[in-house]
């Protein structure tokens, strides 16, 4: 297990390095820069801005500087305050670290993604803190919806194979796979938001401060009123693939010899399914959770645009138009880390479900 984590960590380092290099290259290959305007800024101002953000240096130096800021941990000594505690300096725009804590007088700081060029008073870290929880909540709601709808629908379709339930479920699934969020989103907004006026057509129902920095503090009707439409729009595609996979997998498991053994023991059909078939049939479903998670992450970009949700995705799309280099880099790296972590989680779940799998 330890070896597995070390391997995964090294792998993640490599992924992050490659991802950051590609992003950095592409970002600078696109014409225009963070300070290009319709009406060009005077040359002196432009030079000043470029110098301030080190944009006048060669690209390789800029990249090295970026890696240094993000990857290399810093240590500093804190001063004692009169009450016996330590004085923690308020971070400035250029030294706002994502991870920051102190043990005694020694402060540990890691991952400084730098300032945002577009909103001059915020760092990338500030953007993360404010925007990411919203996207996280949207993603989790969608994943939850996808699983809560997809798994039971797949099970029902398999157990009632070739009945109306099966056909109904699989029709919903085919509809789900073929209608992307970009089509479904506006339709939902039009029906439930604009025509029927049952649900707010745009916005998000939770504000900071968030519980543990991520979770909404008002998990009630007010939250769900806003969350339900975008979560359904984003989650439906995933629920469809989950449903189809669950159905196929359960149908296969039911034909296995050990299911016959379970029946031969005199088990009730209900127990044959729940105890002997379900866990086995969910193993392949868990394997697609990794790619599914990735699809949901990218899906939030579009969904947030459609529903006007102030999340990371919406901010990220804007940051590309603005050539807000640190935000682009930061977001991509953060999402890369997230995906690697999600895949580790999937691996662990896989090992939990299937005792034949052990990582070492």
């Amino acid at each position, binding site marked *: 297990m330890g070896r597995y984590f070390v391997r995964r960590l090294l792998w993640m380092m490599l992924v992050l390095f490659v991802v950051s290099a590609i992003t950095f290259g592409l970002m600078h290959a696109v014409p225009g820069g963070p300070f290009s305007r319709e009406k060009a800024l005077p040359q002196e101002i432009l030079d000043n801005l470029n110098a301030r953000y080190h944009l006048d240096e060669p690209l390789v130096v800029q990249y090295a500087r970026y890696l240094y800021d993000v990857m290399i941990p810093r240590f500093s000594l804190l001063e004692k305050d009169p009450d016996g505690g330590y004085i923690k300096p308020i971070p400035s725009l250029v030294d706002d670290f994502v991870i920051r804590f102190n043990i005694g007088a020694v402060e540990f700081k890691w991952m400084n993604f730098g300032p945002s060029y577009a909103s001059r008073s915020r760092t990338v870290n500030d953007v993360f803190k404010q925007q990411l929880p919203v996207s996280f909540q949207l993603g989790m709601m969608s994943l939850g919806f996808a699983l809560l709808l997809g798994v039971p629908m797949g099970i029902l379709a398999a157990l009632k194979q070739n009945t109306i339930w099966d056909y109904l479920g699989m029709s919903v699934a085919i509809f789900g796979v073929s209608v992307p969020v970009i089509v479904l989103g506006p339709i939902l907004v039009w029906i439930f938001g604009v025509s029927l006026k049952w649900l707010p057509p745009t916005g998000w129902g939770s504000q900071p401060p968030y519980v543990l920095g991520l979770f909404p503090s008002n998990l009630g009707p007010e939250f769900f009123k806003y969350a339900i439409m975008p979560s359904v729009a984003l989650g439906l595609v995933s629920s469809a693939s989950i449903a189809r996979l669950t159905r196929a997998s359960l149908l296969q498991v039911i034909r296995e010899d*050990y299911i016959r053994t379970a029946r*031969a023991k*005199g088990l009730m059909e209900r127990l044959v399914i729940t105890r002997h078939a379900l866990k*086995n049939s969910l193993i392949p479903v868990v394997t697609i959770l990794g790619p599914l998670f990735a699809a949901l992450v990218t899906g939030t970009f579009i969904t947030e645009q459609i529903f006007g949700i102030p999340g990371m995705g919406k901010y990220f799309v804007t940051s590309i138009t603005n050539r807000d280099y640190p935000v682009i880099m930061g977001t991509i790296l953060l999402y890369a880390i997230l995906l690697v972590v999600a895949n580790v989680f999937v691996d662990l779940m896989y090992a939990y479900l299937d005792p034949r799998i052990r990582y070492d």
Partner: protein
Amino acid sequence: MAPKVLEVKDLATQFKTRDGIVHAVNGVSFELQEGETLGIVGESACGKTVTVLSILGLIPSPPGKVVSGSAHYLGKDLLTMSDEEIRFIRGAQISMVFQDPMTSFNPVLTIGRQVAEPIEIHQGVSRKEALERAGELLALVGIPNAKERLSDYPHQFSGGMRQRAMIAMALACSPTVLVADEPTTALDVTIQAQILDIVKRLRDQLGMAIIWITHDLGIIAGLAQRVNVMYGGFIVEEAPVKELYAHPQHPYTIGLLGSLPRLDASTHTRLVSIDGVPPVLMKKPTSCPFAPRCPFVMDRCLQENPPLLSFDTHHRVACWVDPKTGGARA
């Protein structure tokens, strides 16, 4: 004669496949007396497994279907019982040891859990108690450190250990009838002998009746009282074991016994190969299914499928030919 526990009549099972209907079992009838051990022998794909699965209602449907017949267990027809009724019989009164120990255990549940399951559901004891019993059963079938191995998963067991665990599971509720489908095929000879000893001992202790399906004529000789020989979905000969070995009547049986020099339990002779290929089961035969491979074949064999008729009090055979003379049976 002891009372019948199981009476199978005219049982026929078919499978609908893409290439047509497979006539896997074509109207077999036999009885099982209390405490008796019945052997079923025959080459691969002759319908041995399908016969016993049909009796227990375990044929996968679709594609399979029991198309006719009855199977009375202590006077009640298993084939027309409700799911709930037959559930109380399966695993408790009639239990089964499956052919393939590799795939017959659930890979994600512990061995202990699976062996304990019949006890838990049929005897209404707590899971903890059932597990304890499972440990004793595993020890009984000769699994070393049985208690510690309860928490193992099937992939941590060897094939032979799994087969023994399967037998332990089948014996868990002291059944009236044990159906064993080639239970010792995967085991080496010493373990085979151990298992046979255990089964014989339990049979004598519990008065359990056994249906033992095998390829191994040596095992049948030392274990069974009566033998059914199956061919192409039919029972072609049925006789007490000594009678069958001494006076085989069906040319197929004679072929099977061909290389067996004498009735000896320690001679573990596999079925000898008989020239020709096993019958295709895609259509219900109108002639004798063995005719294409039979050295004694006559005109009648190609026109009419012989029924299973009494040859002697306890000896039935389905053949038009008298193998002694090579001519028609009197």
